[in-house]
């Protein structure tokens, strides 16, 4: 229990996907102009990550990992399908995103319209693929992967709604002309990264 909580908090605050690894910057910067759309995208990312992390874990553990096909027979015991990791993970992610897209279109057409192309683009959001790959690399268990997925999603959600609120606030600020738009968004992201470093090294015991 403590370990799961630790994984969750670590992935949400310390190793934040956006602010510590700078993954998923594309949708993070593009959809953070208003809080409302950022909120929707953040929730979608939480959902996708929460589902894909354990599904990908199962996929990796029972189909892709070296020797995991041994149950099919002797000759499969040495088969190593890890080279299929990327394409398999992406396929899972894409199908989850498709699901989210259908749900959002059904229940909130206005959000669906304002997210536009960035909703299907969650598929190629590095934060999501990154979560699955980190999970394999760090050799998490199934429960840990779920906590890690949820934590990463929550971290992305926090980061994107925070920057969206800031960008709404500074909309009428006298930002120097060359920095307007994305320039200042990058600077804000950097400053937010510093602020999130407050949890670096936190330990729950």
């Amino acid at each position, binding site marked *: 229990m403590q370990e799961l909580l630790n994984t969750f908090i670590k992935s949400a605050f310390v190793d934040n996907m956006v602010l510590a690894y700078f993954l998923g910057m594309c949708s993070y910067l593009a959809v953070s102009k208003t809080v409302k759309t950022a909120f929707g995208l953040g929730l979608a990312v939480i959902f996708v990550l929460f589902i894909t992390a354990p599904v990908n874990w199962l996929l990796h553990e029972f189909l892709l990992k070296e020797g995991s096909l041994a149950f099919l027979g002797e000759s499969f015991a040495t088969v190593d399908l890890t080279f299929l990791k990327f394409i398999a993970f992406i396929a899972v992610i894409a199908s989850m995103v498709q699901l989210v897209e259908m749900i959002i279109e059904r229940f909130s057409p206005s959000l669906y319209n304002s997210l536009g192309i960035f909703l299907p683009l969650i598929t190629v959001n590095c934060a999501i693929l990154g979560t699955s790959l980190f999970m394999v690399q760090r050799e998490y268990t199934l429960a840990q992967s779920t906590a890690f997925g949820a934590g990463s999603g929550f971290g992305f959600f926090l980061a994107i709604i925070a920057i969206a609120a800031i960008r709404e606030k*500074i909309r009428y600020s006298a930002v120097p002309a060359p920095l307007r738009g994305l320039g200042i968004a990058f600077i804000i992201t950097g400053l937010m990264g510093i*602020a999130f470093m*407050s949890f670096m090294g936190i330990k729950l015991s």
Partner: protein
Amino acid sequence: MKFLRNFLETIEPKMAGNKYLHTIYDGFATFLFAPNSTTSEGVHIRDGIDLKRTMVTVVMALQLCLLFGMFNIGHQHYTAYGLYPGLGEAIFTKLAYGFLQLLPIIIVAHVVGLGIEFFFAAKKGHPIEEGFLVTGMLIPLIVPPDIPLWMLAIAVAFAVIIGKEAFGGTGMNIVNVALTARVFLFFAYPTEISGDTCWVAYDYNILHNIFGMGAATLQELGQTVVPDGGMKKLLVDSFSGATPLALAAKGGWSAVADQFTLQSLFVGDIPGSVGETSKIAVIIGALMLIVTGIASWRIMLSMIVGAAFMGFFINMFGGYLSTEVFGFATANPFFAVPWYYHLIMGSFLFAMAFMATDPVTAAQTMQGKLIYGFLIGCVGIIVRVLNPAFPEGWMLAILFMNVFAPLIDHWVYSKNIKRRLARANG
């Protein structure tokens, strides 16, 4: 006064021609005298106070902390040699020593910061913005006094350019500028500013060479005070004294109580950052800000409540909850430090009075301020207790909540809009 005004009036036409010169002229003239130009058109709030007066009030509120901080540098220095142990002894010598230690930092912070402000103001064709007056005063109070001056200059430049001017100047920044400077030092030069132990001046500065103050010579002290270390020890510029927080992290409250009395924690004759050691000076400053209405009492109050709540929760967590409910024991002795002691250790009060209440970066709505302060209190205690990497949490807690302040405001006003819409429609 008359003389000054006449002087300003005579040089005014000379300054008007040059863009840069006029900006500087205007900045100083309005700093010394309230300008008599008023806006004639439109509806305006008429008030005797402008941004310059607001900032100066904060600077005034900081003076007591600064004075005590200077005194404390001297006090720690002489106590380290075993001289003048009493708090009331040789006050002016100690003050002069601390003043000379701190003066270069104050000068560098102001020259670099104001220089950049002047440049940007002239470039934009705006009058000089006053925000740096407070920042420049805060920075000497929160950086270690032995920081190399070039590092300080880089940190100040980073904070003013990236933290403030990139966002459009005073009033537009999203993170506190003084804290940005300190956090830059903290992460860029971690060896200079650990926070675990604290700098106590051990060297003799210019004071002794020029005035021969301090009664004893270097030679004499080397032999009487540090007999075993001898002169070797004196070659070290300064030595580090553990702060109450570092002790608490290692041995809980009892370790702190062994070394410091409650009274000295309160009065402030202990090693620590320049500004924060004296709780009395900070409280007087805070009261000044509350009475003049410059700082929000909501933030201060809710921050105390937040810290007390989190401290209490952690006490519970360390005692009852962890063993009975969660099933894992805590090895961290910090958990057992009673929550009320958290409020007088470290820089809690200083951060509360002068950092969290920064009107620009705090939440703007009334309700938002309460939430903002409460969360700073919680996050600060979490970082302080649970994070072994940082002994003190307020700088990072405030930066963290600075980032979320616009979000809190957004939540408050969208809730308000919803409520009023429902009332109008229903």
